[in-house]
């Protein structure tokens, strides 16, 4: 199978490219990046060809593309790739607004290509294990969730609202809303949020707390932020506690770590040894294309988690709950 990559603006592009290189019978045939220096360097690292012209890149004979551009360019690249009949794995969030997301889903449907959204957390072994426990009924009925996704300020285009569409709350809410929807098979109907910016001197949000309610009355709290500084032992966290009528289970996707102590600036460091969820995502996408099946994480999944994140901004602005 032949795969191309569109933009290395998002840092996940590197681990996705690593994933492609690890898979047998999958070839990274080219990298499109308008940032010539970045594109050329990536092409050299992954022993492939760099293209600075999108149309020329899309003329390549390849089955699929992985899009890791700035968020506001997802639509343009998805539309062009779909029209060129390439299957697509698009970095999250699907888009910066619902109208773009809907258009992306429709164009992929019209051109009969797969649109998968990159939610690697779905491929974390402990997260999957809890999903299995839920599906087997081991937790009973779910009544509430408690989730966190906190990390470091990524800087660059992430803190430019026009390119990113939102700060920490957009960046770190979509993942956990996706997991909650996946665990519950229900949609969020109400969002209440407080969003602010104070961890960094930036003109975009870096902290937010959300309270959600699902169709069936399940309630959830979510903590999204870029509150982790470089001296903190790890980049951040992804946790979800599922409160069920039979038992409560807490899962921490990055719990599997060794603790190392040194006398440097960062005296304690957590070194993760759990499964590589980015590789799991890439492996799944390639299999999905190979088998021609419905993607594990659809464009619609991307749309619904984006909808909740955008509602959080509106709720914080209006200081009232938003009904979806």
């Amino acid at each position, binding site marked *: 199978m032949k795969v191309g990559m569109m933009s290395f603006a998002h840092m996940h592009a590197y681990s996705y490219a690593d994933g492609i290189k690890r898979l047998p019978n999958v070839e990274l045939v080219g990298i499109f990046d308008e940032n010539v220096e970045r594109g050329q360097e990536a092409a050299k690292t992954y022993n492939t060809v760099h293209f600075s012209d999108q149309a020329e890149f899309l003329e390549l004979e390849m089955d699929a593309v992985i899009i890791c551009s700035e968020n506001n360019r997802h639509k343009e690249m998805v539309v062009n790739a779909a029209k060129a009949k390439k299957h697509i794995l698009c970095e999250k969030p699907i888009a910066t607004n619902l109208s773009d997301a809907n258009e992306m889903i429709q164009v992929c449907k019209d051109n009969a290509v797969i649109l998968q959204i990159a939610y690697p957390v779905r491929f974390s072994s402990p997260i999957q294990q809890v999903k299995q426990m839920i599906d087997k009924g081991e937790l009973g009925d779910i*009544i509430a969730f408690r989730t966190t996704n906190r990390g470091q300020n990524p800087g660059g285009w992430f803190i430019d609202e026009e390119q990113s569409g939102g700060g920490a709350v957009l960046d770190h809410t979509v993942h956990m809303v996706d997991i909650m929807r996946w665990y519950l098979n229900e949609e969020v109907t109400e969002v209440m949020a407080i969003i602010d910016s104070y961890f960094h001197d930036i003109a975009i949000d870096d902290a937010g707390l959300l309270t959600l309610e699902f169709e069936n009355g399940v*309630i959830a*709290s979510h903590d999204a932020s870029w509150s982790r500084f470089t001296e903190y032992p790890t980049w951040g966290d992804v946790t979800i506690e599922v409160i069920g009528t039979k038992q409560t289970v807490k899962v921490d996707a990055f719990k599997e770590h060794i603790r190392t102590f040194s006398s440097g600036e960062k005296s304690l460091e957590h070194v993760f040894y759990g499964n590589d969820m980015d590789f799991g995502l890439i492996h799944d996408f390639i299999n999905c294309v190979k088998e021609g099946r419905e993607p594990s994480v659809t464009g619609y999944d991307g749309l619904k988690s984006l909808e909740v994140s955008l509602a959080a901004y509106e709720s914080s602005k209006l200081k009232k709950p938003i009904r979806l």
Partner: protein
Amino acid sequence: MILKIVFASIEKLDFRNAFENLTLVESIEQLGNSANEDTTYVLAAVEDQLKAVEDSGHEIYIPSTGLTADNQSLGWHVYFDLENYPFYQKVKEVIGKEDKPKGVFRFRRIVNQYANNLLLTGDLYVLSSLLGELQGIQVKQTNQIMIPEHTIVLMDFGGGTMAHIEYTVAEQERIELEWSGIKTIIEFDSDQMRPIQQGSRTSSQISYSVDAILASAQKVDQELVTRLKYFSNLINGGAHS
């Protein structure tokens, strides 16, 4: 003779290394003639024992969850559960270093009993004195016919401080607390801070001392009662700014 009598959840108290001279008694009647003013008497905070000291004139200390309309004008002292824990005192020290703390505060209790929102009211009172005046609050509760019962309270303290406090009613007592401040992060989980690991037992009881109760308790007055009513109204959907 005026006696010092502390009503408490006995299972929460650590009697070791107490500064005060303590005697645990089962009932007021047990005090008899041998009682003396140099001793602090500790009793389980149960309704009939509280009633028995109503007009005694003794120096009475009760938990905030025991404060009712009947006993709030008796000149008793009231204390708040959260404020007595040594870990909370340390948290207060760290957060209190900032003039106006900015950050995300997350607090979660697993409790045996929800005590009709009284525990939550007391926690709000304590937290508000640390984080600032509440600007907004939203309370979400699960369907109360489902067990366990879970409550999420979203709070805006204005000026850059926000909080989620959550309560789950279950067969254990546990407190988790996190503060994500500017260049300061605090993490606490009572389950992970057990100094004694005993076999496969997973439940733990966090405790505080009678000394802490006596040091933190405050005399019940109209200002305190009004303030607690304010928080209670907020929890029950009352107006706020």
